[in-house]
């Protein structure tokens, strides 16, 4: 066996799920902001946008990317908000968490595919609304 073969490693696995594609997208009005929502699953996108108004506009005030992850636990934990300007971390235990970067105008996070629609609508979205609603509009993100 050549030494080249012996020391060749497979490409590292994406342990952090950093490279999950989020090709599905939708632009909505959410708390007075035009939000470009992105996800890897249609169900997730529909659930998060169900309380928003469709908006086909090209420009947006915020990019919101949520990766739906089947490996996260389904049960929502206690909600917490950790502010560390310019970033805020909103989390619901191990099953849903997202970081809002106020300068970059990006909200990015993960949600377990096991979280029920009711919990999304009644527990998660109200918190996201508070977070997004309090965000000041200055520079729009690059899309």
């Amino acid at each position, binding site marked *: 066996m050549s030494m080249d073969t*012996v020391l060749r490693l497979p*490409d590292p696995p994406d342990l952090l799920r*950093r490279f999950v594609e989020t090709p599905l997208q939708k632009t909505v009005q959410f708390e007075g902001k035009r939000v470009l929502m992105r996800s890897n699953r249609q169900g997730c996108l529909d659930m998060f946008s169900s309380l928003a108004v469709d908006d086909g506009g090209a420009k947006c005030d915020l990019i919101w990317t949520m990766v739906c992850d089947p490996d996260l636990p389904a049960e929502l934990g*206690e909600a917490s908000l*950790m502010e560390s300007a310019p970033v805020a*971390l909103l989390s619901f235990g191990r099953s849903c*968490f997202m*970081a809002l970067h106020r300068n970059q105008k990006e909200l990015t996070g993960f949600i377990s595919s096991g979280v029920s629609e009711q919990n999304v609508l009644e527990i998660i979205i109200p918190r996201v609304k508070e977070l997004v609603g309090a965000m000041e509009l200055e520079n729009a993100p690059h899309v």
Partner: protein
Amino acid sequence: MVVGCHEFVSALSFVRTAGFQACFRGTLAVEMIRTYSVEREELAVKSMLEIAGCKCLFSTNDRSLFESVSRWKSHKGVEAGCDFELRVIVDKGLTRDASAQPQFRGAQQFVFAVFHSKESFLLDLFERRVTAVVSRETARDHEFWNTILIPIALGVLGPAMGVAPLHCACLAHNGQGMLVAGISGAGKSTLAVALAKEGFALVSDDWTYARLEQGEVSAYGLQVPVKLMPECSRYFEELSSLRPRIALNGELAFEVNAAETFRVQVAHRCAPSCVVFLERCNVEKSSIEALPRDVAKRYFAQSAELLPTELRQAIAEREGIIDQVTSRDCWRFRYRGTPQQGARALKRFFEERYDVDGHCAAAS
């Protein structure tokens, strides 16, 4: 007020305890949210730490946590610039589940981590900052900070601040360093311990943190416990009275303090003179031969964590360090017999090949 920790419920608000505020807003669902505001002035306990040559501005609201990380304390004041920040809020009302497995996810410049079921960590590669909320119990858990969190923070943020985490052991002998690389299971840690027992100073057994200092590569270890597979008790009698336990990655292993268990010398940094790639295989006799540099480079590049393209500067810096590291002599080492026999063969080679000033001896 210690740090803003509030619980919101809805519609009416009341102060529950000093530092905890709860308010109700009139919905049927009783939703509670803990809110923490990490403004620097609220984290009154500040100190400068020095971790693998990097300056870390550490701030917290709890002195017991500061004691947990005091071994990294730098003589530099907090006014000095820092390479990264560690901001930790200790919430006395938070409880932890010590048996819960940690969880990690990453997106763009962020890495989200949850430890002990409820303790959230946000690692931000752009801001070069770790922000966390932990329980009092975790604040006092020296082992957690020194052997888990700080290595993870350096591993994640390192590329953003000119530190390349390299998957290799590192040893020093007469002032010269030797990196020992190899695929998982090749026996890096076992050989590293055997080399340490042969008189090398152990810098690290698994992950080494390399950075450029005045144009030269420095290799650092974090003095975390050495991880040895259960079968290593055959080779090291010091392990015979110990029991392996489940490590963070789920493997059953001995995790021991090398200095205490094996009475070997440890060092926190060295300047590497060469890289040795260890290959475990059945061979007639031990051999050491030159390894093409591109093979060595590819090994380190492929064993590094994948980073998104947004972090192109960090990726480029990491590649630059790997380039420098692999500009040293690269060797492939195969050995037969016990780790002790392998260590003796490698020691002989190292002593013959490199003089104490680190210059390569005449080619043999």
